[in-house]
């Protein structure tokens, strides 16, 4: 299941294990295979959460989708990696791929992810409405400088200015 802040959506990207019907530009290539893929102009790459941001810099301008693989939902490296990728000015789609739980959805969005792709087994237990509800748990947050959501410190500043 693929979903973004609005809900479930179709995946237009062709996975590494799917045989492309056409020579599609929306091909998602594993990081390990990226180097050998010079003749096919893939525009999507799936990276491990251990990748150093420095290794990714040369291709940030070439791709439209970066999928960060979460091996386990308890492994939070992907959140920091997403932050670093966004800090480099990457404007394409950022996807979290793996067995995340709905209670992490808001965190993922705030760290700069656009969408989350979870295994079907997880999606069966946790349909999109659960994800969307979980994402709305907090109406505002304490941290400044994160991508989405209302920030309490800035709300206080506005309240002070309005007085």
């Amino acid at each position: 299941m693929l979903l973004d802040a609005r809900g479930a959506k179709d995946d237009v990207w062709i996975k590494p294990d799917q045989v492309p019907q056409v020579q599609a530009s929306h091909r998602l290539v594993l990081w390990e295979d990226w180097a050998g893929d010079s003749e096919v102009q893939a525009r999507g790459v799936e990276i491990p959460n251990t990748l150093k941001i420095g290794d990714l810099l040369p291709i940030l301008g070439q791709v439209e989708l970066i999928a960060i693989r979460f091996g386990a939902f308890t492994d939070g490296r992907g959140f920091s990696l997403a932050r670093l990728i966004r800090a480099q000015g990457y404007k394409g789609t950022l996807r979290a791929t793996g067995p995340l739980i709905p209670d992490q959805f808001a965190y993922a969005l705030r760290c700069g992810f656009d969408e989350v792709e979870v295994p079907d087994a997880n999606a069966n237990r946790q349909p999109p409405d659960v994800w969307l509800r979980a994402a709305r748990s907090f109406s505002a947050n304490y941290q400044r400088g994160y991508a989405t959501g209302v920030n309490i410190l800035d709300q206080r500043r506005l309240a002070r200015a309005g007085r």
Partner: protein
Amino acid sequence: MYRYDEFDERFVRERVEQFRDEVARRLDGSLTEDEFRPLRLKNGLYLQLHAYMLRIAIPYGTLSSRQLRQLALIADRYDRGYGHFTTRQNIQFNWPKLRDAPDILGLLADVEMHCIQTSGNCIRNVTADHFAGVAADEIDDPRPVCELIRQWSSAHPEFSYLPRKFKIAVTGALHDRAVVKAHDIGLRMVRDRETSAKGFEVIVGGGLGRTPFVGKVIRDFLPEDELLAYLEAIMRVYNLEGRRDNKYKARVKILVHEIGVEAFREKVEAEYARLDVASINPDPAEVERIAAYFAPPAYEKLPAQSTALDAAMKLNPAFAEWVEINGFEHKAPGYVAVTVSLKGIGEVPGDMTSDQMRHFADLTDRFSLGELRVSHNQNLILPDVKKKDLFPLWQELGKFGLATANVGLITDIIACPGLDYCSLATARSIPIAQAIATRFADPVRQRDIGPLNLNISGCINACGHHHVGHIGILGLEKRGQESYQITLGGDSSEDAAIGDVIGPGLTGDAVPGAIERLVAIYLQERREGEPFIATVKRIGQAPFKAAFQHYVEGLRDHAA
């Protein structure tokens, strides 16, 4: 103390509803137990040996009388009429039901409290000097900074799934009463030598547990308004590079140790240099808003000495001893901060009944402006007592068994819950603490021995901070038997040190005798006015080890 504004209030209420939803999803099976575990831990709910345990945050150890009364109510309604104050300035209830947890969180929210991040692999409840704001040796009150960190670390989008738990402690004083060098991050308030601007010395990679380390300084001076951005840089380096292959090597202390403090510092500084700090740090008005809550109360103008106090002390030697041992110098003339010992002889260190809580809350209102503190030593503090009020206070405390005069002495033992409660424990801690306290109960003897920190942990995770006890006791399991290893020379002060193991493990019943031998060596070797730890540092471990060895051999001969 800090009071929630509308945003804080809404945040904790939303947190309660979030957890209620998570519990419901666990019960209907849409969350697996593995998925639910980190969520309940981040709300302070552990599964222990006999039941769930709920750990409630007491941020930087500051509590109001109203909050203490609510804890008493929770103890009666959802627990067995008592709570346990921990070595991280929190309180634990040992017998709540999972289904009641959301309602308990609701009762806590009613008095501006929560259980957020009292467990789990996230930034934990931030701790501070328990004499913050009243200590005479203070550069500044550390609690506004702690409150800023509390808010910043709550439900952090990036740092809620760290390799391991992460503990931050702050002190604003010259003397370290917050054990900052045994924390993942320790912050010491300092002044810049040239400009005398306020800032922090930043210490990283301290910790106890399986592999104890004293923290290392990575920044001598960080201007105070740069703190949150610098913390973000440290946390990001740790989140990305901390080990995740082995939970015993996952704390930041191991990363600092493995790559070296220089390399760690370089990584943090490189990340920090890259950050847009203005977008992260709070604006000065927000810092001022928080600080205003901690402005000193309007102290009465009092003479430094109280004739009423002097007279009462002359007439009542037991009272005089209590004042001398449990009193702490206050920055305001005529006031004193009082430590109320939760270490009555034979009692469970850190435990308090609901009756005691209610009584104590009343005394807090009557004698200390409605505010109290919880220390990492598992005692309570009335921070703002008038000297002239000490005698009636002492009399009232005595009615509920709270007037024990032993703060900092050998019976003021820090002990984790151990195998009586904890699912991680390998041995019992509480009975050992009780046996030692009973052995050294004589008040004259305790006073003669003087300041001595004795710490007991029931397993290698070291919640009893045994590594930094002057005498540390670690309970292990050897071939199905409880076995206690004794360390000597640990220090939790600004001269932080990890104690050394002095010999083979002992059975529990042999521990008090062994402590006797160590104390005997001290009494024999000490110089005029020299406290225990100073003698240990001066004469070294050898005489103590020899006496211990002799004791162990005697035990063997006796058994044979």
